[in-house]
């Protein structure tokens, strides 16, 4: 799923390799070493340690089921990568936004977004990210990512987003 997040530039560069050897770039960021981009210079790739690097190469968000705040295996895989990245770039602080879809009442969704943000925070701190670097904020249903009154939109709006401060 993380290949959906690649920027257009990266997608273009990797287009031929992508289908055959996706693990290459995955190892570069999750292998524990500094995520130095692959040796062949990609002049317009994200700067390592930047917010763009985080979004493109790590994945900044996880998704939740309807009225749920537990983490799916897919979510924990993303958060494992986030934790590694954050342990590499130790000066970075983050704000975790908790969001809900539109199929709930406003105040309940504020509470639900708070739960989701804290699910992400608790996982990251359990993986060794210092709690002092992590803030949370709930937006309830106030800041949808996708417009639409259908399950496809709601699925993308039920999310926890890790924002580099």
């Amino acid at each position, binding site marked *: 799923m993380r290949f959906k997040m690649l920027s257009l530039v990266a997608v273009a560069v990797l287009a031929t390799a992508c289908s055959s050897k996706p693990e290459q770039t995955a190892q570069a960021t999750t292998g524990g070493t500094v995520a130095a981009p692959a040796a062949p210079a990609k002049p317009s790739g994200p700067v390592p340690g930047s917010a763009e690097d985080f979004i493109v190469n790590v994945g900044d968000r996880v998704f939740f089921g309807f009225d749920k705040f537990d983490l799916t295996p897919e979510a924990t895989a993303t958060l494992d990568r986030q934790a590694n990245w954050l342990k590499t770039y130790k000066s970075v602080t983050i704000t975790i936004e908790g969001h809900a879809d539109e199929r709930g*009442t406003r105040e309940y969704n504020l509470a639900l977004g*708070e739960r989701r943000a804290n699910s992400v925070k608790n996982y990251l701190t359990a993986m060794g990210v210092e709690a002092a670097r992590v803030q949370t904020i709930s937006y309830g249903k106030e800041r949808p990512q996708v417009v*639409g009154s259908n399950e496809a939109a709601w699925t993308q709006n039920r999310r926890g987003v890790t924002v580099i401060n």
Partner: protein
Amino acid sequence: MQANALFSTGGWRVVGRFVAVVAMVLAAGFAAPARAELEIDITSGNPQPIPIAITNFAGDNPNATQIGQNIAGVISANLERSGLFRPLEPAKFVQTPDSLKVGVRFADWRLIQAQGLVTGTVSQSPDGRTRIEFRLFDVTAGQQVTGLAYTVQADGWRRVAHIISDAIYKRVTGEEGYFDTRIVYIAESGPALQRVKRLAIMDQDGENHRFLTDGRTLVLTPRFSPSTQEITYLSYFNNRPRVYLFNIDTGRQEVLGDFPGMTFAPRFSPDGNKVIMSLATSGNSDIYTLDLRTRRQTQLTNHPGIDTSPSFAPDGSKVVFESDRGGTQQLYTMNADGSDVKRITFGQGRYGTPVWSPRGDLIAFTRLAGDKFYIGVIRPDGTGERLLTEAYHVEGPTWAPNGRVLMFFKERPSGQGGKQRQAKLYSIDLTGFNERQVLTPTDASDPAWSPLIP
């Protein structure tokens, strides 16, 4: 902490004082009235609206004549919107405002099927003070049933028109009116992904509309204080979602309490001395009160479930709130000190946004069941649930001060391709009849109905 005062405010209190000081009852000029015919029972089903003739108030100069027409227009619109009155076409009226000053020809008014007749006068003294008199006649019985006089500054006529509307409503229905009230709500604008939300306030009929915040900060869920002079609401000022107090007189905004996390879902206690709200810490939401005089914070619930949307009973003895402690979002009541928690909803789906009626007899709520949202009411003991309206999305009922009418907001589903969602305010009678859109300049949500203005 205090945010900037963004807008100055008008002189509602001044108007109020003028109105209050000089209202007086006009003698009927008859012997003790016989039993009046002009009555309507609004507790049963969908009553037939009462045909009523609302004549222009007679002025003693051209300006006063214009005011007299305006007053009749406001009263007529108020009563028509209630669904309980049918204002008759002025073209059919059988007497002019001036001839009515001499005497009412009841037999002629009966010919056009009028059951009620409203007359009045507007007279102005050189210093601008304006005296407004009105009389309500029971045409069938052939007698005056109520009459009042008010002296105000010339621009106070609109409020007097609402007060007169309330007097007519009360005389005919036996219930307090709700026309001399205001609505605070969230005005929405901009595309769905960059929605701008502002606090806005208006008279119950949409007049005197004004924005209270400028939209730079996300604001949600405003609610009136019992005095109608203050609003408590949620603001994302400085990206710290907290409950705030907004003073309508001064424009001052102030954060409430010193809580270690997001505070939200605020409402005043019936005496206005406390605000009850939720505090979220480490992902868990519980209910607290903040005493506005001592600033003391008191925790009422302590449960790992989501506890939110608290609302006091009108006597202050109990609180209704929503919690998912039983697995899904449901309504619970408890004593004002947090003891004796009882679940009151057990239907399919989810129940939220409970709000206790000012009469104490019912609790209004939002229900989600299947793929629809509903506005409904239930007795505080959990019996007698009734659903009043349904849609793709309806939410957030608020009571008119007489407990007979509810306002809420309704959102349309957004279409494919990013078509913008629409949000509008609606009112509905407790019977489930007379659902009407409340007109606002922009999209609108989170309405809160004020008490009657003191």
